[in-house]
């Protein structure tokens, strides 16, 4: 019995830590959606791009302390440019148009590495050890602990930003009602650009952390697939939802793999989160923390 409990505990801890890292990726998605109502299907490719920039720098023997800021700045510049060239002309267009544009972008980003940097696997060796951190009878890899810390810091930072800072409040106003915000003298387009830039920063951090965990090549983009159940469960426009959604999805995956898999004899991990998500949607159509929009004719 005790052993069984310990196993469950380990599963939950493992799920929570990985869930926190899903949240980090989901955060970039939420930031963009919150401000601009745009769905970014290229979130995984963003993360991959950031990973490639950072790992490419390291391969060109740029020290790590320089490579990380460069990757973040590069991602900010990239996001600004993207917003300017692609997304601004699509303002006010149907949701699907933006979805499609980001899918097109994803294709471009996937096509680039093989003819530029090469498609071999690169690494981002962070100055942390390989020995797992042990506590309460279970253990976590150091990279996961780092991921946890970075995710938590990001989430805390952005929550503060939206709640307290002048810019953050303005962004919330833009998200709430663009026309009223414009009438109040807020430069809406500027805030759209800022939202994308913030998504770029988050993608850069995600790229560095996931990249050092998985290695950097085009497969890194697969982390983008994990975003959807997380954001839907939490609510597309809620930062706190991204965290809670990530944690729930992480634990559900973990427990499903530990208890359901042996019964059905196959990996339930990829679809168990979606089942949870659909059930949640049936009761709360806008996610756990999403904003309920009242429709008027």
């Amino acid at each position, binding site marked *: 019995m005790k052993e069984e409990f310990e196993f469950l505990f380990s599963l939950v801890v493992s799920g929570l830590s990985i869930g926190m890292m899903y949240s980090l990726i989901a955060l970039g998605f939420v930031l963009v959606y919150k401000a601009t109502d745009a769905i970014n299907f290229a979130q995984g490719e963003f993360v991959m791009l950031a990973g490639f920039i950072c790992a490419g720098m390291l391969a060109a023997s740029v020290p790590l302390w320089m490579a990380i800021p460069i990757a973040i700045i590069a991602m900010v510049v990239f996001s600004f440019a993207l917003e300017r060239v692609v997304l601004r002309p699509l303002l006010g267009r149907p949701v699907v148009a933006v979805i499609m544009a980001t899918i097109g972008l994803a294709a471009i980003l996937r096509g680039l590495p093989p003819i530029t940097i090469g498609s071999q696997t690169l690494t981002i060796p962070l100055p942390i050890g390989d020995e797992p951190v042990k506590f309460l009878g279970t253990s976590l890899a150091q990279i996961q602990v780092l991921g946890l810390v970075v995710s938590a810091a990001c989430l805390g930072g952005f929550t503060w930003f939206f709640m307290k800072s002048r810019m953050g409040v303005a962004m919330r106003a833009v998200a709430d009602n663009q026309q009223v915000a414009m009438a109040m003298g807020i430069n809406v387009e500027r805030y759209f650009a800022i939202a994308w830039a913030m998504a770029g920063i988050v993608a850069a951090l995600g790229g560095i952390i996931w990249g050092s965990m998985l290695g950097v090549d085009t497969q890194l983009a697969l982390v983008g697939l994990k975003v959807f159940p997380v954001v839907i469960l939490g609510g597309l426009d809620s930062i706190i939802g991204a965290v809670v959604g990530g944690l729930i999805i992480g634990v559900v995956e973990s427990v499903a793999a530990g208890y359901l*898999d042996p019964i059905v004899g196959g990996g*339930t991990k990829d679809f168990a989160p979606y089942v949870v998500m659909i059930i949640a949607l049936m009761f709360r159509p806008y996610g756990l923390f999403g904003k309920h929009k009242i429709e008027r004719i």
Partner: protein
Amino acid sequence: MTKQTTAWLRAGALAGSILASGPALAQDKEIVIGAQCDRTGPTQIVGNVLCPAYHHYMALVNKRGGVEGYKIKVLEIDHEYKVPPAIESHERFKKEGAIMTSAFGTPQLLALLKKFEEDKMPVTSPGIGSSAAADGKKYPYVFPIAATYWSQTGGAVEFAKRQLGGSLKDKKIAYMFFDNPAGREPLPLLEELAKSEGFQMRTFGVPSPGIEMGAQVLDVTGRFKPDFVIAHLFGRAPSVMIKELKGKGFPLSKVVGLVWAGAEADIIAAGGYGIAEGYHTIQYAGVGAEFKVITEIKEMLKAEGKTLGKEFESTVTFNRGVYQGAVHVAAIANAIKAKNGGKPNGEDLRKGFEQVKGLDPSLDGLAPPLALTAEDHEGGGWVQIWSIKGGKFVKTQDWFQGYRKEVLKHVEEENKK
């Protein structure tokens, strides 16, 4: 001549050369091979090494003077691991006069199985596709030409048996597999072997995309506590597994990965050779650059003044591409000889494949003692074990056939259905 006329003439010459370089029909003394590849899709890590390696080897063969007086021309089409482009590429190859195809990817091969038969065009599928295709009577045009998943599984179980002191009685074996048809393919064979050898087996599915498997590894190390782990994973999953098992303190010397779980990229992504120390892999072609053919390819490229590409860094996958090329060349040589120097068609080439025995001698050590026959299109199902020791791949066990009898029986039963 004025400047303008020169410019016009130049433009005309350019246009002419473009028209001439359009889809030309196969030359008389030329054998055309169609190679499908995935350089941009989910399996691009393999494609971007294997396909260039294949091209390099064919270039080397042509430089040596070709095959029995014929030059080899390889057409490559990238299908991004999607099925419709694979269909299109097959028809394109046919149009350009290809007499055989090198397949890439199981779904693409399956969707074309009928076409290959109807068009009487042999196709090779090393390391992919259904293991049942090893039976040449049932699938006359499909040639796995290397150990299928079943033979690899047989090899893995035999290796486990040796490592565990010669008997598997009451031992526990964990099978970690990518949860797709390819990953499940060895399951029935494993169950049979578990019964006959008396070991206990449990399966651990890793669903796509397999970038995270904390829970499965906890289940393996914390609950099941196996004596040996057989891993049949693809993409990023092998490196995640290595990392997680290491993190939970499971000895990697008790883990063996099948062919797509053991390339350099997997080890690098897992965190390097230090982390993966002890990990075993099954290989159907040799590992490393210390083969005569690799040196020759490098010398050829140097003589042409080219730099060596990134593909040379992954010797596991690179050598598989070279091996594949060598089998094709051997079959083509057989076919031409059988026609006394005449140009073979697909049907001739099929017979050529069925007589392949021994390859280009410069592949000595890289290639298994392959012998294709009309019944056995797999060529014996030979595998090697290479393990990570002291920061590199070291050969632990030379070519062997694991549970050959059981595997053959299984192929036969599967094809009776």
